[in-house]
């Protein structure tokens, strides 16, 4: 047997059964424990330590879900903190259709969503079949729809076990509480809240903020893992912007501009810019007609009708063109020939250069010939001999040709550049246009002659008012701006805009002189249309032809009627340019079309801005005062009190005590106006018909009104040759006795452009 052989042979004994088993077991242990386990541990070590980071990165890549949190866009305020544009919370419905497991789930989701969100079922169903993690179903849904979607998600998760497929994400929607107010300045945002026009576009980087992210762990089905693995980067809300625009002034301007457009049947919109002459801040900037910022892609009905008449293939293009025309901020993107308003600049140059003084004499024969070209004056009979101030007041073209010649071509160009016409004003709004002027060396004597009175070159309205502001403020050409302050979401000021002086175009002395001349112009002479009682206003009318021609005649059809002025003349605060492009009514002169609007605006804006009034004696007659409270006291006491305030009284009814009064307490009533005191209820039913008050002198208006027992507030009235041009309550309206009717007056005879 083997055992015996082992004992006999020592060498073989080592391989005896147990010894062999031990050896082989040892080898087995080495194989399994050293090699096997060693390999396993080494492999694990390699994967965890050497490849760990790259594998982890790949793992994290599939485990994490990245959700963007939209940032709230900053609010746009007016100068006084009134909200002009604001973002409100809305929601976005998205889904990850890749997680749908069967068609039943898809149908249920598509059915629910299409019903709630008023979408086409087939369309939504198509989306549910996409192999995608992110499909937008509908954006910017409101609270009610959101609540319904939440219910649907609940239902989907309980009934179909696919609730996590549909999700709601935070979103914001832009609201413009004032609709079309300052539309061309504020602009609007697109579907992704990106600024498309105006301040919204210009300051997009400030307003938009930085979107945040939520990084959450998700399982392989895309739902969140239950454990805490969430990293979020908060969205940084956009900055708030404070405009220099004053909502009150803006709405006053818009009100009268719209009226002006309607009254004069203006074909190509109008512009009104109000500027703080000392800082360059734009207080109001109106382009009428504007558009509703909450619905910027809808054209006016008439335009839509016109487009519908076009052939099908041209409609889209026509619509786009109409939209971009509607959005254009005419005040800065369109150029026009400034016409006589530019004479302010020409006169300033001549004064600054010392080529003229008050007594320099100019002769006007009704026309003037320059290099064989005859240039007419608007006064065909000629103004005859006139001094410098009279020439301005007459707005005499031949005189200004001569003034231009006195200045000379080089200096004229120099000042043209000095006033900032040759470059963009740098206003912080998009799309500013550049002027169109003669290239250097190409200007002829005829060009200089017509340029002297603002013809045959084009500038933007903003350039014009900036230059006029420079004339008013001591010669300083400022950079106009509409944003005064930018704050972050917490209210910390990020940026404060101060006045930026570009250069001094004329001396302060010249500026003072111009203020004096232009103030005289509105008060007594040519531009009396720009007269506002109680205020010294400097200004100049302008009627320019839209199409430049070498021989200026008045037979061209299209005009731009403008008025540019500032107040008070002796301490200028606010400058304003009003212009209407192509008035097609009976009147087209600046003094007829633009001036009344200017007066109406100024007579409301100046008191609002608390600019000090200085009435002349004759003006005091028309000054409005506040009606006191005469109710609750006996009739005799009330009559006495009213008399003390400078009013006459009419008592209606048979009671002992005054129970009500018209005009109401604090209402503006002209000095010497009539207060109707009611003593019983029945008497209050009495009414009067408003008479026609247009076409009369102030005194005539006064007498007519008092016959009817009505009060009149005079706007733009003065002693010298004004006639009433409009009344705020039209004739034929039934009102209570004592009602105050505002009547606007305008120069009756002189169209000195």
């Amino acid at each position, binding site marked *: 047997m083997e055992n015996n052989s082992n004992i006999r042979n020592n060498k073989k004994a080592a391989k005896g059964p147990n*010894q062999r088993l031990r050896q082989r*077991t040892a080898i087995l242990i080495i194989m399994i424990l050293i090699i096997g386990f060693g390999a396993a541990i080494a492999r*694990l070590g390699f994967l965890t330590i050497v490849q760990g980071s790259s594998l982890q990165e790949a793992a994290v890549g599939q485990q994490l879900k990245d959700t963007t949190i939209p940032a709230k866009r900053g609010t746009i305020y007016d100068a006084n903190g009134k909200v002009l544009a604001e973002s409100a919370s809305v929601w976005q419905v998205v889904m990850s259709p890749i997680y749908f497991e069967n068609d039943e789930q898809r149908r249920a989701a598509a059915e629910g969503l299409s019903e709630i969100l008023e979408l086409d079922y087939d369309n939504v169903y198509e989306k549910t079949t996409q192999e995608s993690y992110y499909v937008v179903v509908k954006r910017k849904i409101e609270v009610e729809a959101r609540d319904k979607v939440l219910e649907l998600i609940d239902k989907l998760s309980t009934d179909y076990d696919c609730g996590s497929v549909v999700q709601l994400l935070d979103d914001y929607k832009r609201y413009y509480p004032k609709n079309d107010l300052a539309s061309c300045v504020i602009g609007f945002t697109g579907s992704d809240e990106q600024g498309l026009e105006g301040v919204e576009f210009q300051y997009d980087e400030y307003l938009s903020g930085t979107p945040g992210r939520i990084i959450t762990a998700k399982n392989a089905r895309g739902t969140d893992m239950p454990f805490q693995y969430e990293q979020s980067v908060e969205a940084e809300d956009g900055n708030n912007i404070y405009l220099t625009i004053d909502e009150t002034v803006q709405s006053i301007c818009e009100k009268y501009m719209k009226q002006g457009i309607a009254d004069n049947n203006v074909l190509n919109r109008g512009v009104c810019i109000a500027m703080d002459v000392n800082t360059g801040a734009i207080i109001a900037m109106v382009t009428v007609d504007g558009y509703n910022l909450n619905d910027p892609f809808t054209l006016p009905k008439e335009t839509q009708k016109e487009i519908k008449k076009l052939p099908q293939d041209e409609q889209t293009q026509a619509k786009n063109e109409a939209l971009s025309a509607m959005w254009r901020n005419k005040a800065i993107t369109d150029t026009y020939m400034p016409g006589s308003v530019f004479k302010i600049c020409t006169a300033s140059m001549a004064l600054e250069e010392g080529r003229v003084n008050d007594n320099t004499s100019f002769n006007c024969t009704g026309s003037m010939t320059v290099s064989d070209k005859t240039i007419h004056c608007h006064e065909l009979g000629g103004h005859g001999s006139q001094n410098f101030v009279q020439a301005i007041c007459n707005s005499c073209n031949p005189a200004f040709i001569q003034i231009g010649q006195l200045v000379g071509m080089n200096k004229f160009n120099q000042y043209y550049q000095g006033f900032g016409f040759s470059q963009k004003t740098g206003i912080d709004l998009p799309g500013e246009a550049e002027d169109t002027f003669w290239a250097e060396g190409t200007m002829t004597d005829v060009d200089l002659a017509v340029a002297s009175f603002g013809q045959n070159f084009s500038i933007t309205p903003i350039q014009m008012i900036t230059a006029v502001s420079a004339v008013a403020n001591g010669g300083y050409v400022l950079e106009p701006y509409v944003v005064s302050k930018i704050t972050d979401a917490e209210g910390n000021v990020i940026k404060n805009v101060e006045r930026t002086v570009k250069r001094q175009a004329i001396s302060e002395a010249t500026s003072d002189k111009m203020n004096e001349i232009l103030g005289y112009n509105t008060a007594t002479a040519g531009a009396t249309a720009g007269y506002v009682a109680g205020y010294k206003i400097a200004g100049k009318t302008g009627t320019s032809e839209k199409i430049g021609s070498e021989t200026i005649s008045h037979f061209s059809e299209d005009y731009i009627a403008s008025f540019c002025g500032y107040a008070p003349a002796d301490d200028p605060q606010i400058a304003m340019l009003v212009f209407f492009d192509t008035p097609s009514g009976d009147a087209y002169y600046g003094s007829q079309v633009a001036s009344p609007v200017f007066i109406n605006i100024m007579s409301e804006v100046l008191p609002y801005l608390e600019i000090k009034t200085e009435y002349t004696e004759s003006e005091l007659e028309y000054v409005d005062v506040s009606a006191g409270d005469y109710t609750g006291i006996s009739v005799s006491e009330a009559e006495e009190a009213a008399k003390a305030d400078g009013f006459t009284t009419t008592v209606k009814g048979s009671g002992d005590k005054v129970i009500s009064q018209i005009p109401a307490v604090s209402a503006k009533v002209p000095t010497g106006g009539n207060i109707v005191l009611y003593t019983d209820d029945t008497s209050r039913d009495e009414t009067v018909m408003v008479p026609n008050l247009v076409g009369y002198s102030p005194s005539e208006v006064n007498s007519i009104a008092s016959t009817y027992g009505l009060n009149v507030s005079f706007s733009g009235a003065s002693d010298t040759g004004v006639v009433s041009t409009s009344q705020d309550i039209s004739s034929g309206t039934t009102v209570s006795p004592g009602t105050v009717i505002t009547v606007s007056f305008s120069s009756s005879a002189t169209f000195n452009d």
Partner: protein
Amino acid sequence: MAPNKRMMLQADMNRIYDDEYYSEQKIKQEKFFVRPSRQRKMKKTKIFSIGMGIDLPFCIIILILLTIGTIMMFSASYAFSYYTQGDSYYFLIRQLIFIAIGLGAMCLMSFFNYNKLHRIAPIVLAISYIALLVVLALPSDSGVKRWIPLGMFNIQPSEVAKFALILFFAHWASKYYNKMQFARYSVLPGAIVFGTTALLLFFEPHYSGIVIIAILTVLMLYIGGMKTKYLFIGFVIMVGLVLILAMTGGLSYAMSRMDGWGQALVYTDEDMWQTTWQTRNSLYAIGSGGLWGLGLGQSRQKYLYLPEPQNDFIFAIVVEELGFIGATIILLIFALLVWRGITLSLRAKDKFGKLLGIGLTSQIGIQVVLNILVITDWLPNTGISLPFFSYGGSSLIMLLAQMGIVLSISRTANIERQ
């Protein structure tokens, strides 16, 4: 090394002792259960090995692995369980029931005189073949037939087959220990038993089972005393066989499982990307673990990224949560179990016990190593579960019962006296 007198004497004694046990009368005289109480009275002070009692360290290691394994199984499964069963505890509760049954079986087996198995080894082998035939006869949806459904849990006949194979070879090699150097006593039965088992598994198909069966056959024959040269011959034949099958397309299923082996992280096309999904996510999980792991319960890959994280790929989640350090400690505990199991088996009083104990313990070590190599993409993705960790009724109960046998063997071993 020169043999000393004592060793020779010992060898002789063992043989004599073995011969005594082989006598049928002796076995009949033995009581079915060893009475531990009586044995303990004789030698009761040893902490680790209480005389004829069970080997306490081995038992403790089993319990430690079972505890860690269960905790990790719960951690790995609860997300999957929640999403697929609607109940995070679904797998845990079932596993705990299996553990209870398994521990009962272990306890029972540890009191069972393993020598009884000596005689019934061929019967057990026959039963396992029947089971393998039964599973082939059962209908299957997927075409893969591995399970015999038995109500609450399924029986995997291949698990029984592994045990039966070890048992049979332990029986055979101890019976013909001195003739094992002859090919007809070693190679021939080896080839027949392995061939039959492998053939049955081939039709399931269950290739990882064949691989384990092959390794176990070689292992058992090797420690049983087969000549080393046959080992090499057998190896060459087996490689040749595999190559022939691969050429003729007989291994299409296995080949398909080989697809994407080692390519899990490289994107080639969508189909391949889906095929390697499990392996890739296993690698992601392991890599995410790093040195220290994400912490117990903090795995992210178990959230449906790693399919069935409670099964074969559980250790990937273990590494993700406990890191390389934790995984290494667990592997060292496994190694300790294997070491202790083999060494205690070597002290068994009879050859059958030695071979059976070594075989059963080695099986665990082999499964662990293969499992780790699969989840780390060093071996193709085949179904090899991790003992004590992977969820599964029959395999766990089978495993614990086998450990019970090793414990029973340990009663006869006097490890301390060595």
